[in-house]
């Protein structure tokens, strides 16, 4: 068991490519901590530095308040589950799981007990003596987890462990994995590019983009209070709508004005501007489920034309035309299915409107 802390960690390749920029975060003992980001965002470099597979260019990594920068991977008491599982192809399931124990010269009967325990835990007992070459993806994944947990590491690192599985199995393994890790009470660092995995499994998420940490927080915190437009757009499916708008004050009324519509901010939308004094040109972010669509006019509603309708059964995703190039996505109940070309009346759930600075992309709630 250990907590992991990064203090101003940088990874610079070849003196110029900055893969990780000034990353600082802390992962608590026993926490399921996910690093999430698109490919090339630096999440794998971060993890490889934590594992000791790559040198740390600048900064410090601490396990339980001890700097581990110079420790080789084998001395960090970590275990790792790789994207391609990295099972030793010439060994059996049993030998693969026993491998880290045998390397550490543990007595034979103790190895046997621990391997069987792990196999039981992961339902691998029936295939313990088969080779690993012909296992299914799910089984290989279980074996690689078995190899990781068998020596009770302080930190379990998983690098996209289920992204090679097909969709159905991935959903099942997500639950399975979460349950297994919970029962083990081991500090887990989980790297993925799939926001669904992070949201479903992690206690906390660190979102990275272009080498920089964008936000660290619980899944719901990140969902409801995105620190910037990247986080807002990266989390959520279908993705958040972004509309460039201008803030207009008339008396004590606030309006947002776009070329397509003008909308008054009500008591739920206004508070976030109480202490705002920045530019009046902003980027509005609104999630599709916070866009309300009616077939009859409502007070303060805007009229938009339906461009495309995607029925999904329980819900309908409607594309609404803002202008020639921009659309607004709305996610509504499945019973509402307007015709293409039909005008509809739209309001926003103003509690969940996010406004981002155009230059920095920061949520104005974070601006003083």
């Amino acid at each position, binding site marked *: 068991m250990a907590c992991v802390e990064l203090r101003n960690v940088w990874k610079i390749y070849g003196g110029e490519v900055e893969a990780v920029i000034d990353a600082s975060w802390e992962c608590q003992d026993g926490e399921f901590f996910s690093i999430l980001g698109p490919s090339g965002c630096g999440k794998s470099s971060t993890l490889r530095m934590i*594992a*000791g*597979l790559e040198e740390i260019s600048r900064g410090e990594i601490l396990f339980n308040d001890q700097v581990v920068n110079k420790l*080789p*991977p*084998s001395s960090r008491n*970590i*275990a*790792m589950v*790789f*994207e*391609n*599982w*990295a*099972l*030793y*192809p*010439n060994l059996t399931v049993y030998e693969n799981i026993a*491998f*880290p124990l045998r*390397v*550490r010269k543990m007595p034979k009967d103790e190895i046997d007990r621990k391997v069987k325990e792990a196999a039981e835990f992961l339902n691998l007992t029936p295939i313990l003596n088969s080779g690993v070459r012909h296992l299914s993806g799910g089984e290989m994944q279980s074996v690689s987890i078995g*190899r990781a947990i068998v020596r009770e590491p302080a930190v379990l690192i998983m690098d996209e462990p289920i992204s090679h599985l097909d969709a159905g199995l991935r959903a099942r393994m997500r639950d399975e994995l979460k349950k297994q890790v919970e029962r083990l009470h081991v500090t887990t660092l989980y790297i993925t590019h799939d926001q669904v995995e992070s949201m479903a499994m992690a206690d906390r998420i660190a979102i990275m983009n272009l080498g920089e940490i964008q936000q660290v927080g619980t899944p719901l915190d990140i969902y409801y209070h995105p620190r910037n437009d990247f986080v807002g757009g990266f989390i959520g499916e279908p993705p958040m709508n972004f509309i460039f708008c201008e803030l207009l004050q008339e008396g004590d009324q606030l309006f947002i004005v776009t070329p397509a519509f003008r909308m008054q901010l009500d008591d739920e939308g206004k508070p976030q501007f109480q202490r705002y004094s920045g530019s009046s040109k902003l980027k509005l972010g609104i999630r599709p489920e916070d866009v309300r669509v009616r077939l009859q006019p409502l007070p303060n509603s805007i009229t938009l034309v339906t461009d495309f309708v995607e029925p999904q059964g329980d819900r309908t995703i409607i594309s609404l035309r803002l202008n020639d190039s921009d659309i607004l996505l709305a996610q509504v109940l499945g019973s509402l299915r307007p015709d293409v070309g039909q005008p509809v009346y739209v309001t926003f759930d103003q509690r969940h409107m996010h406004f981002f600075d155009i230059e920095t992309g920061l949520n104005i709630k974070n601006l003083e």
Partner: protein
Amino acid sequence: MLEAKSTNSLESAFEANEKKTLAFYLKWVFFGRPARIILLIIFLLAIILPIFYIAMTSLKEPIEIRTSGALLPRGEITTVNWVKAFANVPLLRYLLNSTVVALVSTILVLIVAVPTTYSIIRFNTGGWFFPAWILGTYVMPPIVVSIPIFAMVKMVQLQNTLAGLILVHTMANLPIAVWLIDSYIRAIPKELEQAAWIDGYSKFETLARVVVPLIRPGVLATGVITLILSWNEFLFALILTYGVKSNTFPIGISRYIGEHGLQFGEMSAAALAGIVPIYILVFLSSRNLVEGLTRGGVKG
């Protein structure tokens, strides 16, 4: 496996192709099954005919060899060439010398080449220069370095010894071994080695206990190739050895050129005696050889 699959798909492509266009027929003529069989026969003949001719020559009376160029012996079949070949020249000693040189130098080559290649690939040892240099020495004609090599071997007092020749063969065959092993190591997923580091192996243990077992077919195939190269090697053997004690088979065989002219029959018998061990070796290792040369490594 892969080979078989692609062949089958080609075959079925021919069957499935309903439009019998000109391109289809051209393809069939050049790549279809009959074309492949004919090609195979031509290749086999090219390889087998000379050996068969040598074998027949070794069974002819010496007088017949000189008077007739026919493939098959016309007169009686005789073993006189074989008996004389072993009696007049210490052929067994030459074969033994060759075996020692080829085996020991191959083992040395593999011991040096595997860690060298691994280090170049995984730890970028020597930057861009070292691998390029190795390849450079491979394409350089050996005769260019024959005099310096002779001088060096003489300096360490190893001229006319098997040890000297072993060292030179090891050096000469290293580049090709590095070049061959390169692809096998590259085929191993890096994560496998990283997993071993995390599991507690040192870098050297990872190489010895994880990487080497996985590239074994490739290493064996490389070994067979360097063994054959050493067995055949003539130039260095010629300049570095000058006596029965250390002459290898390719040098020894030139001893049948005596005062009474070329002893074609004996030479044929000796040549065949030198070919046979290599054929047996390749035959025994053919599975490994094919696996090693085609598959290239392991998929994770």
